Every structure is written in C-alpha cells, then in structure tokens.
C-alpha cells in the first residue's frame, strides 16, 4: 500500500494506492495521527485505487473517523467502489462514515 498526500486549499487529500489489509492498514492510521500532530484539520481519504479491504482496513477507517469526529475536525472518505464498498455495506457502516462519490463532491462538501 502506498500513501500520497496532496493539498487542495485547506484540504489534505490522502491518495491510498493498493490493498488495505491486515499487513499494512496501520500505515494509514499512523499517517493521519502524524498529520493531526501537525494540526491538519481537513482530511479527504481517496480510495479510488483500493480494490481490497479487510476488517483491519475497516478498523483503521473507524479509528481515524472516530478520532477526527472527537476532535471536531473534518473527514470525508471518497471513491469507495467494488468489493471495498461491498465490505463496508456488509459491516453496515455506509451511514457511519462521511462518504462522497468523488473528490470534487468532497471538496464542495468541505466548503459548505
């Protein structure tokens, strides 16, 4: 799994590339925690290039989401598709996570 950060205005977009599985999902968690230490306040996690997620990956997203919610900061997860979407649906967390279809939509929502 590869993680890249880019900035759009005040928003930090994390592009996740690869599989979010039991061996590497902690990396995303660690990255977000480091960004929080650096006072980043707006996160967009882009899952466009993620075709596989397991319970560790979902767990990482839950941890990130609950931490950011508790701090009253902003998070949107975007471009969820295929089996990643299916796993989140099976876990019934589509309503729990703040989700948009596209990055553009996420950016608009951040400004709203």
């Amino acid at each position, binding site marked *: 799994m590869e993680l890249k950060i880019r900035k759009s205005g005040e928003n930090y977009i994390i592009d996740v590339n690869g599989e979010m599985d039991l061996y590497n999902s902690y990396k995303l968690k660690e990255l977000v925690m480091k960004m929080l230490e650096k006072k980043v306040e707006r996160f967009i996690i882009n899952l466009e290039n993620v075709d596989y997620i*397991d319970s560790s990956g979902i767990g*990482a997203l839950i941890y990130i989401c609950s931490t950011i919610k508790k701090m009253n900061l902003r998070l949107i997860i975007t471009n969820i598709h295929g089996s990643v979407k299916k796993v989140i649906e099976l876990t019934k967390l589509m309503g*729990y996570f703040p989700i948009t279809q596209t990055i553009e939509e996420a950016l608009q929502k951040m400004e709203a």
Partner: protein
Amino acid sequence: MSTLRKEEAVKQIKVDENSPLFDRTGLLHKEFPSDFRQIRYFTLLIVQTAPPDIKEINLLEQQISEIIKNAVKHGNRCDMEKKVRVWYSFSPEHAHIIVEDEGEGFKDLEKWNEFNRKRQTLLEGDDFTALADYVSFRGAAADDNDGGNALFAALEYWNGGFVFNQKRNAVAMLKHFPRRHLGVAKESEN
C-alpha cells in the same frame, strides 16, 4: 413485529456441534502452521480451487482470510507449532468452509452476540452517534491491529449459516451464490 419475530430477525453466532455444516464428507482439506505472515497466501491456496466465474471472488477471498486470521491469531495465538485445519468445497452456487484451530475456543461468543444486538438496535434507529461505541468489538485479547468488525460482515456474507462447534475452536459456514440466468445474476437472490 412481535418480540419473537424480532429476535429471529437479529442474526446471531450460533453454537451447534450437530449442524450439517460440520459434515466434512467430500470436502477438500488443507492444514497450515499458524504463521501470521502467510494468512493471505494460505487463503489463496484455498480460493484458487473455486470456479473462476464465482460471484465476487475477491470478496470470498477476503471473507475466508478473516476466518483464517481469527484461527491463526486469536485461536492459536500465532504459535507455529499449532495447526489451522481447513475443509472446503466450492461451486458456482456455493462456498462451504470449515476452519478449526487448536486454541481454547471463542470464549467471548455470548458477549459478541449481546454487543451485536445493541449494534443492530442502533443501526435500525440510525443512531450513528451512539453507534460510535459499537462499531468495533474488542475481545479480551484484541490489539490495535484488530478491526473488531470481521464477524459483523461474516454473519451477513455467509447466508447459509455461520456456526461454531461446542468447544468453539471450529467454525463452519456456507454461502449460497445467486443463480445466473443468461449470464446475469438475479439481484433478488443475493
């Protein structure tokens, strides 16, 4: 909806030593050491025997991987001397798996069912604030890398049953795949 019907509607992990899902007749069999690093590789060795046109095969792989991970990590505590045994059969219409470890068994099963009942109640009420405390089940031996959500998805995915033996160190599960009509799966059968 009556109380009884509502109880039935809430899916639970069951314990039933005599479940037909534990019938190993005609199933293929493999056993693995409890090597955490190779969980996905072991899973692929099993899933590669499934027909390639099986519906959403990478979702099947993920679901099997979760059960093997539980056996390796929570059952056998990654003790390389202990084996994980898997029996399995696949067709375009079904996936049937039994996974057994050498551990002490899933002691938190009742706690898990109780946790899941509360979780279901919150989901039905769209109470996503309170749900925050019920998104991950933390068993006694869970660590930070455990998602705590695998069995929620398992109960939904394994639509033919998901049942433990009496000792709770073996779990059997069945998935029915929708029949295909002229190459198109009927959604109602999902």
